[in-house]
């Protein structure tokens, strides 16, 4: 569907090379990608996230810190808990999500075109 890069680049409007490096580094790890995916739809505490993976809370905290550094999630404190959520809000979020969904369909239309070129009748 090819949407990932576009979506994540939209998260940060103006991006420097250093920010792109941080973004790619943040997303180069399967656990961190999974945390981004989960926190897009729900807020999670760090301890709840840690239960999803075979690793310590400290290890998960490090992953979350890398994601926060890249601007992909935000953390807030609630009592003793740290809560993690995806960064976009409200209508802006819907807009960005639709942009990402558009990329899915752009890929599909390209593939339809290739198929019709190959076998037009």
């Amino acid at each position, binding site marked *: *569907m*090819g*949407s*990932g*890069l*576009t*979506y*994540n680049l939209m998260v940060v409007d103006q991006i420097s090379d250093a920010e792109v*490096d*941080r973004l*790619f*580094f943040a*997303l*180069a790890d399967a656990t961190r*990608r*999974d945390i*981004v*995916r989960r926190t*897009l*739809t729900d807020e999670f505490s760090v301890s709840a996230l840690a239960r999803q993976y075979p690793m310590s809370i400290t290890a998960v905290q490090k992953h979350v810190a890398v994601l926060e550094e890249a601007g992909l999630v935000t953390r807030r404190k609630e009592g003793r808990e740290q809560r993690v959520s995806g960064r976009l809000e409200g*209508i802006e*979020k*819907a*807009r960005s*999500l*639709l*942009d*990402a*969904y*558009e*990329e*899915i*369909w*752009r*890929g*599909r*239309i*390209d*593939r*339809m*075109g*290739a*198929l*019709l070129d190959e076998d*037009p*009748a």
Partner: protein
Amino acid sequence: MGLTSVVKDPEALTMTVTSEWDVDAERAWQLWADPRQLERWWGPPAYPATVVSHDLVPGGRVNYLMTGPEGDQPKGLWEVLEVQAPRRLVVSDAFADDDWNDSGIAAPMLMTVDIADRDGGGVVMTMTTTFASAEALEQMVAMGMEEGLTEAMAQIESVLASQPA
């Protein structure tokens, strides 16, 4: 030939994709009606689709799975609501569980396909997707994001290797 417009309404949670093709309606319809053709364009290269069953009649179902580079196989399910070959198709598209039931991960999205003849030959094919909620849209994109990312990651592997953080 190809994409002509994309109209997005973030408040109504709809997206309309319009495409034009130099083929007749019957040929365009086969993109949807022939499962072997459908699976060649539905999934991205890193997540090719396999159409497991395909019953394109009102009340029928289409079951498909996608195979990721790590062997993961997310499943999808269309419930066919309306079929007027070769002009119109309306389905609801949901994430399926291992028994091909709606997994309930996200509310199904409604997808409408219209194929109209174009003046001077060829067709206009319009796909409209309506999401039940922002959450349903998020789930869809999150799924697509994971798939897209896997692809993107493969492409930038060498960049990462040359720029250790």
